């Protein structure tokens, strides 16, 4: 108890330290358009938090991020398991994954704008950015499966479908979980990026874009703080779900 209070106290001090550095820098620069002061950013944040529109915006952006994330989880885990087990499937998909990994996010966003309605662009982009991470981790997880357990299954003539659900899947769970956590973080980043270019009606990205157009830099900082907080919140939520799952499994 005491320890955790101390730890939280030192965490708080560290945060205060960096806010102080930010304050000093903003005083030195002394131009809000380049670097607003923490005070300006937080009062902009407060103004946002009392507006109803902010919550609608957060709701839609969260929906897009999570939709892209879930799509990538479902396809990434499914195709990852298939590719981990069947080498030809891996060979078929691997070049595609490498290409998706190397294409600049901006190219994908722009092509997605040509293909989809504005609100679906960020979902597609988040999906495409998260999918390779989940896929790669799932493949590594499947390949880490203990060959001795698979041999045991072979001797006892266990059906392939049950080997997948009871052996492969459980063995790769730690890898899949790690992949999901990093994919979720990336999901938030690319969703906002895609929103800035596709400009759906209610989206954090649209507000980021507006704050650039109208030079409302404190707003830009405030929205950024919101994105970071949301990302942190959902990561914690996901980790808690995993922890809970481990405990009561």
């Amino acid at each position, binding site marked *: 108890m005491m320890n955790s209070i101390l730890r939280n106290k030192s965490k708080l001090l560290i945060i205060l330290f960096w806010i102080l550095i930010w304050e000093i820098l903003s005083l030195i620069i002394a131009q809000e358009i380049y670097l607003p002061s923490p005070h300006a950013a937080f009062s902009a944040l407060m103004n946002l938090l009392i507006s109803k529109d902010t919550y609608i915006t957060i709701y839609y952006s969260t929906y897009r991020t999570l939709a892209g994330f879930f799509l990538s989880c479902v396809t990434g885990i499914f195709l990852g398991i298939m590719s981990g087990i069947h080498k030809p499937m891996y060979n078929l998909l691997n070049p595609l994954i490498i290409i998706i990994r190397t294409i600049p996010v901006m190219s994908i966003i722009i092509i997605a704008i040509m293909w989809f309605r504005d609100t679906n662009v960020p979902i597609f982009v988040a999906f495409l950015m998260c999918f390779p991470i989940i896929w790669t981790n799932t493949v590594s997880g499947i390949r880490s499966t203990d060959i*001795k*357990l698979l*041999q*045991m299954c*072979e*001797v*006892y*003539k*266990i*059906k392939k479908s*049950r080997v997948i659900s*009871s*052996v492969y899947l*459980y063995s790769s769970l730690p890898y899949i979980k790690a992949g999901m956590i990093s994919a979720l973080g990336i999901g938030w980043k690319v969703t906002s990026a895609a929103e800035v270019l596709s400009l759906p009606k209610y989206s954090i990205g649209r507000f980021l874009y507006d704050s650039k157009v109208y030079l409302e830099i404190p707003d830009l900082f405030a929205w950024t703080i919101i994105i970071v907080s949301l990302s942190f919140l959902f990561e914690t939520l996901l980790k808690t779900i995993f922890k809970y799952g481990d405990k009561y*499994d």
Partner: protein
Amino acid sequence: MIKLIDISKKYDDLILLKDFNIDFEKNKITCLFGPSGVGKTTIANIVAGIVPIDKGCVGGIDNSLFSYVFQEPRLLKWYNVYENIDFVLKDVYKPDERVEIINSYLNMVELSEYKNYKVDALSGGMAQRVSLARAFAYPSHILIMDEPFKGLDNKLKNEMSSLFLKMWNSSKRTVIFITHDVEEAIDLSHIIFTLKNRPVNIINRITVSNIVNDKEEIKNLLLSH
């Protein structure tokens, strides 16, 4: 009877078996005795069909089911004791039959109280008892035991040996038992093959009787091996 006829097997440049012949009598416990690395496990795995052969044929195993007690328990650590046995029985028995079978075998290995325990929470000896219960609960015709008591202390080893004999007596099957422990070989087997060399040769085929003097003689024979 299981017959291995003119089997050849090599791993890269290592010739382990060359025109090798051996038989295993039905519902008898046959021991493969010999130094580590001689190819005992390979012979057993060829019988079980999990190691492909380069040449030769294996007779007498058509439609046979196998169970296996490995050196290490090879249990699924995300399942509990009961689920681990259930896992191998699911494709073979109906649910209510499974409950009965699993409970009776858990009872036999004295692990009924631990049936809801995760595998991680078990000691090495307990985990190996689960593996033994799994092997007997499965309706196999042929049971392979690859140094199943290795790494257990003497007391546990003796417990496991008598447990094994008890289970085998109540549900007889063809057993291929691999060991390089003299006492184990004599106490548990009906027939002992002593193996040596590379490619492997059968040096002796010993039939174990219950006469004490005879056992001493076999012991000396195995020790000189």
